[in-house]
């Protein structure tokens, strides 16, 4: 079921160009059949392997609803029916995002998913988890309501007691909103992209071998990712 990548040969005269080097490095690490495979090893046919994609799907809804809210503004999400609805979908997709991400984390932890030189995959997942928590906190204080005011005053005390108050002011709505809708989504997006590319490069971690048996990653396969 393998297909050979059909890439145009590089003219030797162009081999030293940075574009040729980058393209070669990309194709060596992530050939198309690895980047978007048709089949996965048989052990992937388990519900526990679904939660990574479920987290990505929830993140997609979070981003789409967040973009809508940022374009329409606070008056819209506080006063109109559609605004209430999109605001609620944003909240509940975040709940689903964290729910599925935690189940994904538990599954990968008990699989010791850092095995097989997958440490960077594991670490990018950890960074994504913590960056998402910060994004969630800045979201709470960006609601522009009494709930946000209460949370930001509590957060301000936490920041000041830890020394972070010298850099961040939770009472500064503009700063919190900017972090929430630009800096943190970009950071989470980049880390998630790196995480997914690493999963594709290294492959899905196999289960622990049973009684010396080595899980077969190549011969028995199931369709779909």
């Amino acid at each position: 079921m393998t297909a050979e990548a059909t890439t145009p040969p590089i003219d030797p005269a162009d081999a030293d160009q940075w574009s040729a080097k980058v393209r070669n490095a990309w194709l060596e690490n992530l050939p198309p059949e690895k980047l978007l495979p048709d089949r996965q090893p048989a052990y992937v046919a388990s519900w526990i392997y679904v939660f990574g994609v479920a987290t990505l799907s929830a993140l997609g809804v979070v981003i789409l609803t967040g973009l809508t809210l940022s374009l329409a503004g606070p008056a819209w999400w506080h006063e109109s029916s559609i605004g209430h609805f999109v605001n609620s979908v944003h909240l509940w997709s975040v709940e689903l995002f964290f729910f599925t991400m935690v189940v994904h984390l538990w599954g990968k932890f008990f699989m010791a998913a850092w095995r097989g030189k997958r440490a960077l995959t594991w670490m990018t997942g950890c960074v994504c988890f913590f960056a998402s928590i910060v994004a969630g906190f800045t979201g709470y204080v960006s609601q522009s309501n009494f709930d946000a005011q209460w949370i930001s005053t509590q957060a301000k005390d936490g920041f000041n007691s830890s020394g972070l108050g010298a850099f961040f002011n939770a009472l500064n709505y503009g700063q919190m909103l900017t972090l929430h809708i630009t800096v943190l989504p970009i950071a989470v997006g980049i880390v998630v992209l790196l995480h997914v590319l690493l999963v594709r490069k290294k492959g899905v971690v196999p289960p622990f071998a049973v009684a010396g048996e080595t899980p077969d990653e190549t011969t028995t396969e199931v369709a779909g990712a």
Partner: protein
Amino acid sequence: MVALLSMWTQILGAVVNLNTEGHYLHWNNSWFSFYISYANLIVIILMIVVFILALVLPFPHSKDRDR
């Protein structure tokens, strides 16, 4: 569409009223204290249940699985 969503929101709102103060589980004695909202406790229990179900429930296979 909006009317349908509004209807479902009202039905759900009638079952669980979220527009009130939070309810908390507070369990403590001389050496131990445990304090959590029922909402967070329910979410954590649901995550554990879903995690266990994901491990034990069979995954649907396509017909060509043994090919």
